[in-house]
Structures are given as structure tokens and as C-alpha cells.
């Protein structure tokens, strides 16, 4: 009995921070958004290192990173783009208000990212030249949003 009680207590403690989080808190949403971007960068890093010749080409590692990137690109991220999380409201945000208000165009841009990441998922495991070629497409898709919707430094 005492064991069961401690288990419940431990479970409650573990859930505590999660339950305390407010999913509508703009700061939390911004943190999630930055984390989402960072996850994509982390999966791009091994691909870029191979494209630059910093590490030898490894079809398995490249394929894994590219599939992961494609999976991230297909996630529904609409809950990350909500009013109150834009630049001008939150200091740490460099998202211009238009990326939140232009939901249709944002969807087009994310669809382009999905297309480019899928192309990378195919290319990455093929050979180095294909991987290098696909980097351009992914980069273009990223800049597709960063160009119009991110505040310049």
C-alpha cells in the first residue's frame, strides 16, 4: 500500500509541471516555436555537414536526418502561430505580425517546406551530389518564410 501511495505521489509530482503549463500562454507558445525551428536545424546539421564536406557522406545517417526533417515539416504547426506571439508583443519573437494574419500564405509556405523536405528525404540516401542539390530546395523553402515574415536584425 505504501508503495502504491509513493507511486501515485511520484506520478503526481511528475505531472505537476506539465499540468501547471498553460498551453495558451504566449511565452510558452514562443518557446515551442523556437524549439520546433531548432529541431529542424538539428536535423539539417548532419545534412549540411556532409554537403560542405566537413564529414564523410553516410547514406544511413543522411537518410535518418532527412526523414526526421520531413516528419517535422508535416507536423500541424498552426497552434504555434497565434496572436500575441509576434514581434512587438514579445521581445524574443522575430515573427512579423503578417505570418500570423496571413494563414493561407503560411500554409502555402509550409506546404513548400514539406515538398522540399520530401525531396531531401529521397535525395539524402541516394548520393552526396543529390543531397547537395536538395539543400538548395530546402534552403529556399526556409527563406520562403524568413524573407517576408521575419524581422531583419
Amino acid at each position, binding site marked *: 500500500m505504501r508503495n502504491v501511495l509513493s507511486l501515485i505521489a511520484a506520478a503526481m509530482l511528475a505531472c505537476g509541471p506539465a499540468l501547471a503549463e498553460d498551453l495558451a500562454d504566449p511565452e510558452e507558445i514562443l518557446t515551442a516555436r523556437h524549439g520546433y525551428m531548432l529541431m529542424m*536545424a538539428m536535423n539539417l*546539421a548532419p545534412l549540411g555537414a556532409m554537403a*560542405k564536406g566537413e564529414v564523410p557522406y553516410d547514406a544511413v545517417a543522411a537518410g535518418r536526418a532527412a526523414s526526421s526533417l520531413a516528419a517535422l515539416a508535416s507536423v500541424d504547426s498552426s497552434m504555434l502561430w497565434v496572436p500575441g506571439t509576434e514581434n512587438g508583443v514579445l521581445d524574443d519573437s522575430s515573427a512579423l505580425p503578417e505570418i500570423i494574419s496571413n494563414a493561407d500564405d503560411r500554409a502555402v509556405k509550409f506546404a513548400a517546406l514539406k515538398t522540399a523536405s520530401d525531396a531531401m528525404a529521397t535525395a539524402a540516401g541516394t548520393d552526396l551530389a543529390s543531397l547537395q542539390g536538395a*539543400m*538548395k530546395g530546402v534552403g*529556399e523553402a526556409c*527563406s520562403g518564410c524568413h*524573407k517576408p515574415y521575419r524581422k*531583419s*536584425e
Partner: protein
Amino acid sequence: MRKLLTALLLLAALALGAFWAVTRPRPLAADALAGLVPDAAHGEQVFWAGGCAACHADAEAKGDQKLILAGGQRFASPFGTFVAPNISNDPNAGIGAWSDLDLANAMVRGVSPEGEHYYPVFPYASYAKATLQDIVDLRAYLATLPADPTPSAPHEVGFPFNIRLSLGGWKFLFLDDGWVVTGDLTPAETRGRYLAEALGHCGECHTPRGTLGGMDRGRWFAGGPVPGGKGNFPNITPAKLTWSEADIVEYLTSGFTPDYDSAGGHMALVVENTAHLPAGDRAAIAAYLKKVPPAE
């Protein structure tokens, strides 16, 4: 008394003459392009290296839309707002009726076919170092692009900057077709210098400007505040840009930084141009950047 008057008149005439001598437009000699044979295929490389589409096409244009050079992008500055003109192949709205010499005068002398000075928002202070062969090739390539009938919008520039003759004084002070980075350079570094200092006109943003808007060649590529706007152009001298040459090449190819962030703002447009260059040219720019004197 009469002597004094004559002297004064003479002085005024001299001053006017000096003013005219300094400020008059200086087009190339009529036979400057004699013997040059245009190569439109190479002209396409010049087009991407020169970044024409970054300002003269719509900022959101993709793929072949980048070849529609209808103008319209707006550039704020402390002197007023400039609007990129139509340089499509339309004979009336664009530059379809221009000769090779017209384009050469525009690019290396900043002079219009009508003999007027252009504002240096058009980066002739950099294009002045371009070879006339490249310009003849570019002219041939531009002639293959679509015509667009959209009329050019006027610049929104107030007095006294709307007196175009005064730009002759600006050119007298700041137009300098000498290389900034000199000394022993490898062939790749030399090619990179041509791409970065002349066609690519990197210094137009990355080199800070003085009060009259001239590039400060002593602080070449040292960055500075965005004129008439917010934020800063980054310092890309080796003092601040510590990326490897491979990092720079990747950035100019895909837009990815070493942290796998991606280019935004106007630099994203620049990458859309450099991505079209032969890989060797991007490597040349990277090699050149390492030779730029470090500036804090």
C-alpha cells in the same frame, strides 16, 4: 568700377564652369564598345552575379517570375524613397530600346540615355568596376527576357536631392573604380573580388556610408545601420565573419548559416541570385572575403 564688374563676371563664369566641369554627366566615348561581341549565355551569369532581379523583380517572385523586371520595389533612405524602375524588355516602359552603350553608360557611369545622372541607389558605384564585355553580354541576355508594360513609378525624393545635377558632385567625390582589396591575390581571390566588389555590389549594403551617402572604403564590409530603416547590416570582414569558406559557400548556395538558420530579408534575395552562379564563383567569393582587411 567697370574693371571690378568684369572681374566679378569672370569669377562667376569660372565658378559656373567649375561647377559644370564637376557635375556634368560623363558618358563613355561613342566607340567604347567597338569590337566587343555579345554572348547572351554568359550574360545570364552576369545577370545573376549582378543581382539585377533582387531589386528590379518583385521581392516575392519565384522561378521564372524573377525574369520579369517590372520594378516597383521601394527603398527608403535618409534622402527619400527610391522606387526600382522597370528594366524589362518593353521598349517604352522598360529598356527594350536601349543600345549596348546605353546600358554601359548606366552601369559604369550612372548616366541615363538622356544624359541625366542616376541616383546611386542604383549601384553604379560598384558596377563602375565591371568589364564592358560583361555589360555587352548582359545587354544581350536582358534582350531575351519578357517585356512588361508597367510604367516606372517616380522616386519620392525632396529638395535638394531632386536636383540631379548635384549628383555629379556626389560622383566626383565618391565614384572610384579602383579595387579596395589589393595586393597578391590568387586567381580565385581575384575572381571573387570582381564578383564581390563589382557585379555583386556587396559593399552597397555591407560597407558603412558617410553623411553624404558615399561608401567608406576604409571600413570596407564593416557593416553599419540600415539607412532610413531599423537594424544593422552585418560586418562581414574576418573580424566578425568567422565562418569557414565552406560555410560561406553553403550560405551563398542554400541560404543556410552554420547554425542552420536561413537567410532572411534582402539577403534571401541575394542568395536567390548567388544560387544560380557556378559553384566555382561562390567559392571565389568565399576566398575573397577572407582577404578583406578585418575591421571591428
